[in-house]
């Protein structure tokens, strides 16, 4: 076969996308809906107007931040399932600082800065807990993280229905909104904050640099590939694992801080909006390579926003976006397995690549 490695990769990518689309179309047909109409409305719902494009960017930021964090833990070979809880804790810490300082004489810019920094610390703290459970308690980080996710949910519900409840009665709609001067400024009439967008892009840029341009990143990846070998080569494994958790939590906490200061302007029970889980999907899809994080998270954010109007126009549940995203990741994983198997069976053809 004369195809180069590059065209072969492209072929597999296209094949994986095709399989995912076919699967999702079959699901749509099962639900009695037209796949073409569904895809068209998702596209229109994501890019149909400037407001919608801005909404996609609004969803992009926390997803990008969550993915940035996850890429750090994945580099160290860790499944940071606790990321949802870390986003929640970031949002709680940000809300806490805003509540304490909102009537102070400090300028709004300073208050916002402190609140967002507190969010990062909150996320890092929660991630460190998962790290301690893993490194010193022997609790697999998937279950330690899940446990802390549940604790975070209990905590945010307690705050919203307890000490931080609205005057009168607490409700699922969240805490009392903050005064407008404590909102991150947004672009024109849209809900998009350029500050938040900048934060997201700088974060993924930092992660890219850390992982591909520094000794720290190189050693972290060594720990991820083979912790025992890395330890024998003199890398302080424990410290590196804890740093990965800490950095991951920092970015996740920022995601929570952005949700509070730029999007909802208050604390709501579903403040993390599942961006942590989605970030895990993205990380797997891009095979943990930071270079692809920005475009793929943008695409996933577009799918999420695009599917919001499906219940109204087609009477379909908006969880379709999750089905499509899951099908894409699964299809990529399976296809790369098929590809390796194929290369294994046709070694002489693989040599031509």
């Amino acid at each position, binding site marked *: 076969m004369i195809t180069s490695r590059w065209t072969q990769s492209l072929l597999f990518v296209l094949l994986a996308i095709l399989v995912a689309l076919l699967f999702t179309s079959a699901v749509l047909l099962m639900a009695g809906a037209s796949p073409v109409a569904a895809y068209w409305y998702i596209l229109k719902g994501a890019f149909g107007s400037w407001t919608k494009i801005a909404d996609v960017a609004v969803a992009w930021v926390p997803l990008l931040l969550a993915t940035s964090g996850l890429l750090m833990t994945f580099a160290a070979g860790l499944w940071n399932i606790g990321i949802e809880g870390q986003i929640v804790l970031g949002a709680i810490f940000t809300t806490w600082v805003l509540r304490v300082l909102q009537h102070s004489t400090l300028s709004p810019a300073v208050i916002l800065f402190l609140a967002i920094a507190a969010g990062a610390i909150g996320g890092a703290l929660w991630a460190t807990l998962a790290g301690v459970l893993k490194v010193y308690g022997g609790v697999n980080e998937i279950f*330690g993280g899940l446990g802390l996710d549940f604790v975070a949910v209990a905590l945010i519900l307690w705050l919203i229905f307890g000490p931080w409840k609205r005057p009168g009665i607490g409700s699922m709609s969240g805490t009392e909104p903050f005064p407008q001067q404590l909102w991150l400024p947004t672009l024109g009439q849209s809900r998009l904050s350029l500050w938040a967008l900048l934060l997201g892009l700088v974060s993924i840029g930092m992660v890219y640099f850390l992982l591909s341009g520094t000794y720290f990143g190189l050693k972290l990846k060594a720990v991820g590939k083979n912790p025992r070998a890395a330890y024998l080569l003199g890398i302080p494994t424990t410290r590196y694992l804890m740093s990965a958790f800490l950095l991951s939590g920092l970015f996740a906490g920022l995601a929570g801080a952005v949700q509070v200061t730029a999007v909802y302007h208050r604390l709501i029970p579903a403040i993390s909006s599942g961006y942590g889980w989605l970030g895990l999907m993205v990380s797997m899809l891009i095979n943990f390579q930071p270079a692809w994080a920005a475009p793929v998270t943008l695409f996933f954010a577009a799918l999420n926003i695009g599917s919001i109007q499906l219940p109204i126009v087609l009477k379909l549940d908006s969880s379709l976006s999750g089905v499509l995203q899951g099908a894409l990741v*699964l299809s990529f994983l399976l296809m790369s397995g098929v590809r390796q198997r194929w290369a294994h069976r046709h070694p002489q053809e693989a040599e031509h690549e």
Partner: protein
Amino acid sequence: MSSHDLLIGLAGVLFAAAPVVFATIGETLTERAGVINLSVNGTILLAAMSSFAVAVSTQSIVLGFAMGMLIGAAVALLVAYSSIALKQSQVAVGFVLTLMARDLAYFLGNPYMGRQGPRVQHLPIPVLSKIPVVGPLFFNHDLLTYFSFVLIGLAWWWVFRTRPGLTLQAIGERPAAAYARGAAVNKLRYLYTALGGALVGLAGPTYSLSVKAGWKGTISGLDGIGWIALALTIFGGWDPVRGAAGAYLFALLQWLGLVLQPYLPNVPSQVLQVAPFPLMILTLLLVNIGNAEWVERTLAGLPPDARRAISKVLRWMQVVPPASLGVPFEEE
């Protein structure tokens, strides 16, 4: 609370724990064979929705249950195939499947939300159910609860007291040695993953056709149960009896959350409902801490009496996973 209420409450705990017992024992069998099926949470949701849909459309409970078990086995086989044949990470594939199956359940279950459907018949066992205390506790349920009692013993007997059970332990611990002795390691791994998956799938209809009859989408209250079953598998140290004990503990905590609500007016009810989840997962700390190196070092510095007492307690709680759990095996 009167003793009568207490008895009814405890019988309710045994009834509500049945699906968790199924899922935990299913995952225990799968992991004993060396495969991690992380898709449990999504599988339970998808199986619950599909079996409810089938039961509503056909008015057949049996077909509903068959559908649930079929889905569980199919998802599990996908995990096994991508791991054994395609050499992909079990954790990655299982994790994607758990999220995707959940969204599939919510998407396809939309038309069935809140509909009335058939449910499993209550079936007190004659004579036995009349025995005081024991009767209402154990013999006044439906077939599924009885099956959950039987399954605990059956699974334990199979794993620890039969020859095929010995082979099952071997392919999870030392697959190369088992293979050399003639065990078809990968074939058996497929088999136990499918069997375990079918049991996980059984948990779905046990909810939607019995314990929490119906399908209510995101507010069905089933999201998270699968993760608990995975944690219980570890908590149980891959022993069906100990895992089932964990399932009863979890159901008991959930029930206590409801019972204690009137006595704790300052704690919002939402918090009491989610409290058992973190508690169950943090029990993992207790069973794992004995494996940590620093604990051994600290213990070495203690006076001998204290050391002996503490390490005895730790060893009693401690669990050790099958040595080849999650490691693919290449048959050469």
